[in-house]
């Protein structure tokens, strides 16, 4: 079975759209951070699909097929670091306000 690259890219696009949707409609900070993870992983899938496309025999010599997986690993790093800092900030805010809802934070306005 050989899945065409188009289909993988379409799946990545759908995942990305779901991530954006989740970011826009959810109020819980933790869910919002999870939506961001979904977007980053959609980018990862897209990187790997592209890498597979460029690693075909006719193209591999003149392109950089290995760049896709390398990028994907670094995206995983970015996602983890962002989640770590994000959750740490959520905990800091929870200590102060006992809430994880984005609506609940409104000290700064104007």
């Amino acid at each position, binding site marked *: 079975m050989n899945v065409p690259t188009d289909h993988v890219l379409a799946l990545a696009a759908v995942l990305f759209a779901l991530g954006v949707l989740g970011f826009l409609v959810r109020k819980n900070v933790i869910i919002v951070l999870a939506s961001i993870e979904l977007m980053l992983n959609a980018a990862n899938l897209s990187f790997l699909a592209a890498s597979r496309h460029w690693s075909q025999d006719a193209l591999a010599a003149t392109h950089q097929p290995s760049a896709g997986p390398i990028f994907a690993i670094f995206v995983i790093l970015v996602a*983890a670091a962002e989640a770590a800092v994000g959750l740490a900030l959520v905990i800091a805010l*929870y200590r102060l306000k006992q809430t994880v809802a984005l609506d609940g934070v409104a000290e700064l306005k104007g």
Partner: protein
Amino acid sequence: MYFDYLNALVFAAVGFVFVFANLILASVLRPKRKTDVGLETYECGEETIGDAWIQFDIRYYTVALVYVIFAVEIAFLFPWALVLGDAVANQGAAKGAGIGAFVLLEGVLFIVILFLGLAYVWAKGDLDWVLSYRHSTYQPPELRAKINLPQVKEIEAAQEAQKAAEPKPAPDTEEAA
């Protein structure tokens, strides 16, 4: 082209059929006796307390943070180990590049910096499990009581003190009555 996905579809269909067929079969065959024990989530081990749909304590995320950092470290060490193997054995993609020592040094530097971070977190007391936040505002680690339970000696001392302080249940009063 879409035919390619037929085996995925068959896989999914078999999975669904397997699950639901077993559930239906079981509901037909099993005796219908509802006891308190039979309705529990797990049929052995700990007794369940309360609902599973509760919000987990935010403190668990501190554990998750540390875990995530080291999980990602491993994600980097796998590709590094593959390259190191090739570079040291002078084969594969690294053949003739002569980068064995350089690759080893890089890996060691990476891990050293990472452990510096771990040591930092440890020394700052952020790996301590916080037993309770008795104050509504943030308490730095050095001000938090690490364990709130009293020591055995303290309990014994308190009991002694209590005994000493209690007025003797004077036996003679009873006699007098």
